[in-house]
């Protein structure tokens, strides 16, 4: 009995994963075609960028400014005592650019936009709007998923860039009110220690996190069958899957970076 249930769950999980992989492939192809064909859903991308990117900017700015300022103040006070004052730049780059920047941006986008997308698509399924699209010959993946896929992914990348700007530049300005340090020395050393692989790693993480978030949100949103009570369940599932997959991807990319 137990074995039977375990086997059934395994088969369902495998089927679900394969279905998800297929959905991801379809979304990716549709997104690439969407960029090339300049379809009518361009406005959807714009709105998605507005809601996911622009509106999340204030939260991102607040988080990155606070985080950067804390690192600078702590580093300036503690590290020179051990003769390792220059480590502050490495710590800033590691924390802001490579690790927490992409991850915190992803978390904010999951919490704000991932849930919104999953809810919206779930309600569209419940209200038979998806069926209507299909019946009129409109591919819901191309029309609904692809713009969100592109919009969320671009938003995460752009938000990550802003996170870096606010975290590295804005936090320096904020620190000047508490503990002034030489601007030339700060930016000179920061740009000296900031390496191209750091930027590539950060952008790569943002891209992958964007893909993960958009995929989990659209996939779980469209997975709603018929009842509106399924919507919050799928929203929660999309959030949990989004967090988990982002952290796993972060770990894998970080490991690849150090190989």
């Amino acid at each position: 009995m137990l074995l039977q249930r375990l086997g059934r769950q395994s088969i369902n999980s495998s089927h679900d994963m394969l279905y998800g992989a297929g959905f991801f492939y379809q979304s990716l192809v549709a997104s690439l075609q969407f960029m090339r064909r300049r379809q009518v859903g361009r406005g959807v991308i714009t709105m998605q960028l507005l809601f996911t990117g622009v509106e999340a900017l204030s939260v991102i700015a607040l988080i990155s400014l606070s985080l950067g300022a804390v690192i600078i103040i702590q580093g300036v006070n503690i590290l020179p005592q051990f003769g390792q004052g220059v480590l502050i730049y490495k710590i800033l780059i590691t924390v802001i650019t490579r690790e927490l920047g992409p991850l915190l941006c992803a978390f904010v986008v999951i919490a704000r936009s991932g849930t919104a997308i999953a809810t919206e698509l779930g309600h569209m399924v419940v209200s038979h709007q998806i069926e209507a699209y299909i019946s009129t010959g409109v591919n819901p993946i191309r029309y609904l998923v692809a713009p969100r896929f592109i919009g969320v992914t671009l938003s995460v990348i752009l938000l990550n860039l802003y996170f870096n700007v606010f975290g590295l530049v804005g936090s320096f300005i904020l620190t000047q009110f508490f503990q002034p340090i030489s601007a030339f020395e700060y930016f000179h050393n920061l740009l000296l220690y900031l390496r191209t692989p750091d930027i590539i790693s950060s952008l790569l993480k943002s891209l992958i996190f964007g893909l993960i978030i958009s995929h989990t949100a659209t996939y779980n949103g469209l997975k709603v069958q018929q009842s509106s009570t399924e919507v919050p369940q799928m929203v929660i599932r999309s959030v949990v899957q989004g967090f988990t997959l982002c952290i796993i991807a972060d770990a894998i990319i970080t490991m690849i970076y150090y190989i």
Partner: protein
Amino acid sequence: MKFRIRYAEQIVGLFTLLAILSLAAILIFMGINQRWFAKDYSFVSQFQSGSGLNRGMAIKLKGFTIGAVDKIELLEDNTVQINFHIFDTYYNRVLPNSVLQLATSPIGIGGSNLVFYPGIGQGPPLEEGAFIPSTDFAEGRRRLESGLVKTDEKEDAVSSVVNRIGPILDSTYKTINSLNSAITRIDNTLSGTQPGPLLDVLLQTQQVMAQLHETLENTSGITANLEKTSAQLSDTQGLVQHLLDPKGSVAKLLDDDEELYTHIQSIIAELESSAAELSSFAGYVNEQQPSITAILQEGRTALQESQDVMQGLQNNPLLRRGITEEYTSPSTFRGMRDGGY
């Protein structure tokens, strides 16, 4: 319509453009700061160990970064080769006799510094790819010690100590290693675990020492006699004169027709008879000693009694205060008769 929705495209466009511009600005400044498009000159150096060295490590000249380490590799002979580059603005400092030094903090904090000392050499800068020795090797140390390089004369005390303590510690370490090795060999040789000429020599020496000890014991007796004789001979008025004087007693004793000998013999005979008489007298005295002692005791008692009589007469009531009662105290002298009889 809300402002955001109305101008959504403009806002998103600005949002995207600013992000791209920020990225571009960061990349441009990075490129300028990290000299992406500048010409660098590559050189090679060698160190005993790779500890303290790492890729991208700055090469410093008087506190200024003039280059960086590009590559570190372990060679077949277990030495470490580094490839590094010097910025084109400092290329003219890479003169012949230049030296690299890895200065490591002896207290473990503060990291390491790869210091470049430009050589005091004539001529153009070294060609790209040239080998610049480090102070880890004899050639580098020789250049540094013989003043062929310009060292930091005005550096702070700590940096000076840090920069110089590395080679000193290396030398000390090597010396200690050599001493340790030498002591181990000597120890092995002395304990007999390592065959060698020293062990044979030591064994022979031990035998010789035992024989020498016996010889010295015999010699010490002879030496004592010789010392005594020598002391007597050193007195010119003593034995020597008597021995050498033809009219001396020795000569006379030896050449007087036994007159002196006979005389001495008669004296000895007289002394012998006197000694016999003295001996018999002593025996007689010894025999008479109790009688003499008794006489002396009686005399003493008589004197005591006469003293009492005299005192009685003195204290007589008719004459004066009578006779004082006598307290007899035991005599401290105990004669042979008191004990024996």
